[in-house]
């Protein structure tokens, strides 16, 4: 993926750029809002990672508003030290697609960047999701593995759906809390872990090949191969 990173802090920028490059992406970096807007408007990117507060008179929100005004729909991830709820809402309203508050773990950033890059397209809604022998029917809301029906609760269904939509990608605990439960709070303990392990038990019971994998220091991933 070709990613534009607009971040004024040199150290954070270096760290993020290096990490994204190691994950196999091409990264362009702009140190202020003006350059960032120029690059974003004149070149083709698959993803923009924007700091909200930028020097140069053009901040992250302005960049997104300008791009969206021009019909540019490149996914945008905000990276910000402004963590209050209304700041998040402001960022998303301006046209941002996700919002990550500093300080952050790189794994969280990477997971969100890759999740955004492969967002389900609106014009081709899938009715069936499949990973290996696991199948999820969005219309009848049933889960089957190797043809055998597995009973899941509505929340577990949504959890599994989210994991399967991002099959092969890391999904962090915070992402699950935000996207599946729509809460922004600090649960203190690993409340998500319990749900995932319950779901995992249901899916893997009687099968020798586990599908949901724990990625150390990051989150979870559903994939066919171990």
């Amino acid at each position: 993926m070709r990613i534009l990173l607009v971040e004024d802090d040199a150290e954070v920028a270096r760290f993020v750029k290096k990490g994204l490059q190691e994950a196999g992406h091409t990264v362009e970096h702009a140190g202020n809002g003006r350059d960032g807007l120029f690059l974003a408007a004149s070149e083709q990117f698959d993803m923009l990672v924007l700091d909200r507060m930028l020097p140069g008179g053009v901040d992250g929100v302005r960049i997104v508003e300008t791009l969206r005004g021009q019909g540019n729909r490149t996914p945008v991830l905000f990276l910000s030290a402004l963590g209050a709820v209304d700041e998040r809402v402001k960022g998303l309203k301006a046209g941002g697609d996700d919002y990550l508050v500093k300080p952050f773990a790189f794994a969280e950033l990477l997971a969100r960047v890759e999740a955004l890059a492969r967002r389900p397209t609106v014009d081709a809604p899938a009715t069936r999701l499949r990973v290996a022998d696991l199948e999820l029917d969005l219309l009848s809301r049933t889960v089957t593995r190797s043809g055998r029906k597995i009973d899941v609760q509505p929340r577990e269904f949504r959890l599994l759906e989210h994991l399967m939509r991002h099959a092969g990608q890391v999904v962090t605990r915070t992402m699950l809390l935000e996207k599946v439960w729509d809460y922004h709070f600090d649960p203190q303990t690993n409340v998500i872990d319990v749900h995932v392990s319950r779901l995992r038990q249901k899916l893997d019971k009687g099968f020798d090949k586990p599908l949901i994998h724990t990625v150390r220091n990051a989150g979870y991933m559903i994939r066919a191969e171990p």
Partner: protein
Amino acid sequence: MTAGSPLGAPNRILPYRGAAPPRLTQSAGFRFAAFFTLMFLVAAVVLVSVMWWATAGALDRQLVAAIRADTVALTERWREGGQLALQDAIQERIALDISNEAIYLLLSDHGERLAGNLETWPAEANSDESFLRIRIMHDGIPTDARLLRRDLPGLRLLVGRDESERLQLRLTLTEGVAWSLGASLIVALLGASLIRRALDRRLEPTFVTALGIAGGDLSRRVPLSGQGDEFDRLGESMNTMLDRIESLMQGVKGVSDAIAHDLRTPIARARSKLEEGLINAQGQDELRAAMEQGIQDLDGISRIFQALLRITEAEAGARRAAFAPLDLSEMLLDVSDFYGAAAEAREQRLETDFPASLPMVGDRDLLMQAMANLLDNAVKFTPPGGVLRLTARRLEDGVVELAVSDSGPGLSAQDRARAGVRFFRAEPSRHMPGYGLGLSLVRAVAQLHGGTVLLEDAIPGASPPGLCVRLLLSGST
């Protein structure tokens, strides 16, 4: 509240010079006073006009009436007795007129003077106007007179009155009016300046208070006179506004206090662990472990930071903007889902009891955080095999009661009083993970929702008594 410098104390008093006092024409006091003067003068002018009409005007009208009546009477005499009778009547009237005001002249057609006390026929009397006001020679003295000419067959009659005395009276009246108008003007100006002074005096304390606040001393309040008048109302609303500003400022100050003071402890903990790792670690793996621990500690610090921000935001009431209608039951379902699993993992049982729907207005994320903190505490402090209870209901007065109880060790009376103070941790819990912010947030969230937090024994008399935290949230607003 946190330890630290006393809240609300002025940091420094800036030398602040208020706006220059308004120029005279800009002063509201002056404008009120000018208006007052104007009204007073208008009233005086109306009064004087009425008086003038009633005195000088009446005299004038009387005079005209007297001349007409006299003329009619003389004409009557001429009709009855002819020219001679008229002459007699005139002579008689002149003789009877003691004040020497009456003026008569009777001429024949040829201009021959037949009777009267006027020497010559005034030239002005030949005009078409029958009523005249002219200056004539009366008894050798020039006087102002009013005359009425009446033409009879073969005769010309002039009847009039000397006006000089009346004019004198009129002059006196005019003088009186001028004096009284002058006096009114002086009284009006005096009154105006008194009004202005009174206004200034009543507004001065407000002005001084505002200047003091602009200078940085937020503790100042407008002194009230106790009369309950408009100025007191202005002062009261200013004071209410200042109280609100001060509490907001305290919230902001609370954040900086927390950053400056409260975060030091966890940072110190993280730092000492890292330092220990650096000195004592044997080989790559231990060093790596120490670094991972360091990163975890830093994450913990940013979580504390986030929690502190949420607490202070809630305490300052700054999050009221995020209030929206919500169904508490849905959230209770989610939270019991989260922590029911966590309780199960610790072999505890979470019992719930709440209605299918419990609509209220509030801050979803903060309420969730508060419930999460309570349940997290309950799970942490209840031994395996214990029972947790999460209940909610709407009381009769519309208040929503939310309660979390556990069968843990409970809190002693003095710990209960201190629970909710930031970073306070009761003695038996010191070895448990946590920072002592959970209940402070719960308390702040309850306050934000117009409610309170009550700490009670879950099972009174039992040992251990357990802890029941009851949140009373105002259902509306």
